[in-house]
């Protein structure tokens, strides 16, 4: 085993708590103004450009990035606080969330200066939406099977093929896409893929909606027909995208959004149980609370690792594996604990509505952003088993 598992008890410093108060006050105002309803994540559009711009104006997007690019040079722990408060409130962050979490950091690391100066400040202002273009019809968990091709052309590249399950492509401005620039080699099947910045308004791109089992439209098919991408949109090493993936995954996998997506049913359960639950409900509730606390402490600890400049790939995968399974089972546990409640307790209708929704979206939680099985493979590698 490479190392023993360590999760230092990171505490959020005072500046985080000051920021948390500001964030809560802002969200309370937005809720009061009717921008969104925290109790009804199933209604309302999670995409809200005007709201995003107000968040940007507050300085809460690109929190950790250099000021030169519109960022705020604050810490990962402060970003953690903002992320968790927005998540808990079920705020409509769709416009900027992916850009803030992972696309921006990739651009910071790999994009040429003029592109950074152009795009990063707009992300920080909440003006642009990014999507992740990794999956293809025949390449999901096995990312390195991607076939969508980038062929060298004069001054740039020509893209042909299609990406699928691309969340938010229908509302987005840019994609960070993974395309094949060379065949893989016998020695290294991960060789040959390159990351590109794609302006989704470019000629030759067609975006087709795919409706989910919830009836909602989040993801899409993105078809590339001889799409031209200029040379300066190559991000990082040609054929070497596999070397760049690790830090992105650490960002993507360890955040509070990886265990809080169905949290609202737990809050609603507490409301429904009232102040004196029976023994069975109290025990069930207590176990859920203990899990939530443990997951949050793990996740904060990983934020501390990111702040310290580490790449906690295994730790991030552990948090996502435990966290997504927990948030997936949470609606089922809450349903059991609510089974003997009076049918007319105050918020029963809200709880039932929330449970129905959470149960419907539950399957995706252990698929998106890397399946349970893929995560366990990464953990096993970290343990020295493969």
């Amino acid at each position: 085993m490479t190392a023993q598992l360590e999760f230092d008890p990171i505490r959020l410093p005072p500046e985080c708590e000051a920021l948390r108060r500001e964030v809560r006050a802002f969200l309370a105002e937005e809720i009061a103004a009717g921008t969104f309803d925290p109790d009804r994540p199933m209604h309302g559009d999670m995409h809200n450009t005007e709201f995003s711009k107000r968040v940007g104006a507050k300085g809460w997007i690109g929190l950790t990035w250099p000021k030169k690019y519109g960022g705020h040079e604050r810490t990962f722990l402060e970003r953690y606080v903002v992320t968790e408060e927005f998540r808990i409130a079920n705020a409509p962050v769709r416009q900027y969330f992916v850009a803030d979490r992972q696309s921006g950091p990739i651009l910071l690391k790999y994009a040429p200066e003029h592109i950074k100066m152009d795009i990063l400040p707009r992300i920080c202002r909440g003006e642009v939406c990014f999507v992740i273009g990794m999956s293809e019809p025949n390449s999901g968990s096995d990312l390195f099977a991607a076939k969508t091709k980038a062929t060298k052309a004069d001054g740039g590249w020509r893209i042909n093929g299609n990406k699928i399950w691309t969340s938010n492509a229908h509302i987005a401005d840019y994609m960070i896409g993974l395309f094949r620039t060379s065949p893989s080699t016998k020695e290294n099947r991960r060789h040959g893929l390159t990351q590109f910045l794609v302006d989704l308004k470019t000629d030759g791109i067609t975006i087709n909606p795919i409706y989910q089992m919830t009836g909602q439209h989040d993801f899409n098919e993105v078809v590339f027909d001889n799409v031209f991408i200029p040379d300066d949109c190559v991000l990082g090493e040609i054929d070497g995208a596999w070397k760049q993936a690790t830090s992105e995954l650490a960002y993507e996998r360890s955040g509070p959004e990886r265990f809080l997506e169905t949290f609202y049913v737990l809050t609603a359960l507490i409301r429904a149980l009232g102040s004196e639950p029976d023994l069975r409900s109290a025990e069930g509730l207590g176990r859920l609370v203990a899990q939530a606390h443990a997951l949050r402490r793990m996740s904060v600890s990983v934020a501390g690792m990111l702040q310290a400049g580490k790449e906690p790939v295994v730790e991030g995968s552990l948090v996502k594996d435990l966290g997504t399974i927990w948030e997936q089972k949470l609606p089922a546990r809450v349903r059991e604990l609510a089974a003997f409640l009076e049918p007319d307790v105050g918020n029963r209708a809200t709880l039932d509505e929330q449970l129905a929704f959470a149960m419907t979206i539950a399957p995706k939680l252990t698929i998106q952003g890397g399946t349970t099985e893929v995560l366990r493979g990464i953990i096993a590698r970290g343990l020295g088993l493969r």
Partner: protein
Amino acid sequence: MTENVSIVAESATRIFADLADPQTINRAKDAAWKAPLWQALTDAGLTLAWVPEALGGSDAGLAEGFEVIDVAGRFAASVPLVETLLAGWLLSQGGIASPGGPMTIAPGRPSDTIGLNASGKLSGRARGIPFAQDCEHIAVLASGAEGASIALVETKNCRVTPGANPAGDASNEVLFADTPAVEWRPASAGFDRTAMLLMGGVARSVQTAGALGAVLRMSVAYANDRVAFERPIAKFQAIQHSLAQLAGEVAAAVAASGSAADAIAHMQSFDDQIFLEAASAKIRSAEAAEKGAAIAHQVHGAIGFTNEHILHRFTLRMLAWRDDFGNESHWAVELGRKVAAGGADAFWPLLASR
């Protein structure tokens, strides 16, 4: 627990490695190894790490004491080190000096109460007291007319029923029947039985996390070593995924117990936040012990079920520790009640406050 392991933890590791190697102990025909181990732990000031110098201890600090407990868990040693640490800590809460030698602490079950009368006599029954039959003294949290009191008792003045937990460590029913206290003092305001049980619970959580870490290392090493169907079983994805899940349980126990220990080391008093940290740590580490032990045994096959293999030294202890200082069901009920009483709107702020 942290990268900057203290000198105290380093010396604990050295002592255990030299004198309590699990393999050697498992083969030992008798308990002759215990005396030199205890002597070394005492000489290094580890047994009374939580006792101020004025009260006879080494005053090593709460955080360092928890590191020692983590090490004790990694070696799953069957000596009352953690119990002596806790007893010394409890006595210090009442300003009572610690005698030398191994001690234990009572009560160990939330439903047991021990009474103390005005003339310093104790009565009541305490079940599941770890190592009582091996200890000369017991530190007791008793309830008297003025509330919680702390008392030091000589074990020979109690009736101790022989018994053992599933791992074979002494675990006794202790009967106090007008048992005289050597010394007794009222506990400071705000200190009560719940506080004592939470402290014991966190100690067990840290110990469990230490043992789980050892179990993970052992299981990974075994999987890489054991060959079946012409390859190391580590190459089978089913094994890899089982061990990844074991790692998840270890990680959760390490994070929850480390957080609770840190919280206690820096606390002002046993408030609601400490309750959340400590109760969660006990619940989560107990759950991790159950799931983790099952996975480790499955991966080890029959050899792990033998007396000869050391796996059981760790798995049976961490399973037994679940019952000390309140089991996970007890704390879940208490935590659930507390959260419910606080109300839905106070729940997230409570979680986020840690």
